[in-house]
């Protein structure tokens, strides 16, 4: 399982980075999106992989080893929300830039 997820994170990252380095704003936003997934899963992976053990505890004595680590999950939740917000923001900025500058190049003007 770990190896699959690791490879998956790697591929998401590679695709995202490739897009992040492209000259068109839309490529960048998709790249940021993919990187967002990769990073969220990466954070999630830091809690190690445990199937069938959601951190929903039962009252009473808690066997902490029987639950997945809740901390990375909470961090990912926050990260998801923030990256959603910032994707929206970047989208609007890129739209505005496209309108004002007449190009969708990341520099706001076509490369010479």
């Amino acid at each position, binding site marked *: 399982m770990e190896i699959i997820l690791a490879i998956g994170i790697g591929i998401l990252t590679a695709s995202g980075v490739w897009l992040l380095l492209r000259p068109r704003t839309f490529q960048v936003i998709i790249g*940021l999106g993919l990187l967002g997934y990769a990073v969220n899963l990466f954070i999630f992976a830091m809690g190690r992989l445990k199937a069938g053990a959601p951190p929903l505890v039962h009252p009473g004595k808690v066997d902490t080893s029987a639950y997945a680590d809740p901390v990375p999950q909470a*961090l990912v939740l926050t990260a998801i929300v923030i990256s959603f917000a910032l994707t929206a923001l970047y989208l609007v900025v890129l739209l*505005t830039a496209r309108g004002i500058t007449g190009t969708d190049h*990341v520099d*706001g003007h076509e490369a010479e």
Partner: protein
Amino acid sequence: MTPSLLEHLTILPIILPLMAAAIMLLLKEQRYKTKATLSLAVCAAILGTALLLLQEASVGGSGGSDTARVYSLGNWAAPFGIVLVADRLSTLMLALIAVVGAAGLIFALARWDRAGPRFHALYLLLIMGVNGAVLTGDLFNLFVFFEVMLAASYGLLLHGSGEKRVRAGLGYVAINLTASLFFLIGVALVYGTVGALNMADLAARVPYIAAEDRALFEAGCAILGIAFLIKAAAWPLGLWLPGAYSAASAPVAAVFTLLSKVGVYVLLRLSMLMFHPDSGDSAGLGQSVLLVLGLATVIFGGAGVIAAQRLERVIGYAVMASSGTVLAIVGLGQANALGGALFYMTASTLASAALFLIAEILVRGEDRAAIGSDAFFDDEYTDPFEADDVEEVGRVMPRSLALLGAFFALAALVVASMPPLAGFIGKLGIFIGLLEGEGASLPASWWVIGILTFSSFATLLALVRFGIEGFWKRDESHALAVRSPEFVAIGGLIACCVWLTIAGGAALSYTEHTGDWLTRPGDYVAAVLKGRL
């Protein structure tokens, strides 16, 4: 928990602006006066709080010992919940933020707060974010506050719109989003290897990290470091700074000077906490990188200052150079010079903020076209730059140019760290600190001194050039319209610089003491964790 309202002082700088911003969202857009008053009141309250905390920090705890005021949010004690820590360093930052923030706000009241919707709310939220970032004692919470700060900064950078800002915003947002991703990766790795997020907890655990986990941990820290170096605008990661800052409207650019300093602050805080000499195998991690990049930043900033064609960009590069200076000192690991560096950082931040404000007044005539790109929709929000109403002109103050020129000169002296003002004291503190003890025999010390001297010279050259352009070569035909809030804002910042000079002894002793405190991370850890572990 002692039952005293004063105990909640630490959190005021964060929730006051938040509350005010929330209330402003419930107010109609037209109610500028109310909003302005509210903003001013909040800034004043933050300033008051910051000064109280500063006073406390400078006096120290019981028996004159240094303490860190720890505020456990949700009443969850340190490693488990999030804590705010107001120690000497964060309090210093807090005071700096309060001053620059208030100045920017006052300046904006003259006109900028009406150049786009919801300026006050965004502005206060930016202040909140910066305050949170310096106060928090938790790594992930730091991320959150970085994001608050950045989100607000995106909004404020774009405030006033126009092609220049949008273009700058495009790059600024993309770079910072990338940096935020690095931040997350770094935090994740740190948690994945150490299992802690609280900074003090981390500091306490770093020496005991298992050998096989250390490489991963250090990789995480290194990536984290890159994220912070991007924010601190270290070369070659901080190339975004001059463009972004110079595109922003003046009051925004003024508060932006704080943002890069927050990056520096975090690097300083974390490297002193986690990689101090007693921290086992990780001691001194990344220090040489900080030194080299810091110096490179100073050189690059110096070159940029000379090469830049617009005053705002000059200031932007100067801000870079000033970040680089502090980074280099952090990297050098010379605790003696740290006090000077902190002093220098404080002074140069105040002065570069003032310069951004002055620069805007100087280029005001030319800039009109850039601000008002022609609108496409006819239900357009009208802003004061497009309307030629009479109030726009403002009363020309007698001697406004002379006074502004004096302000410019003083601010320029501080930024170039020339005598007699505060910047000089800071740099002097660095020099003397560097040469103390074994420092004189380190080649790095001499490099630092040489490069800092070069950067002073470069800054002076450029600022003299632009001073002459702006004040001596000024066309008589368009008079300078400066409104009183603008004078108050700039004058306030300059007054702080002057005060820092006159009361240089006390201020420097504070920063030196702070440097000393930073070299004893054990005390910080003890204060935060209160012996728990």
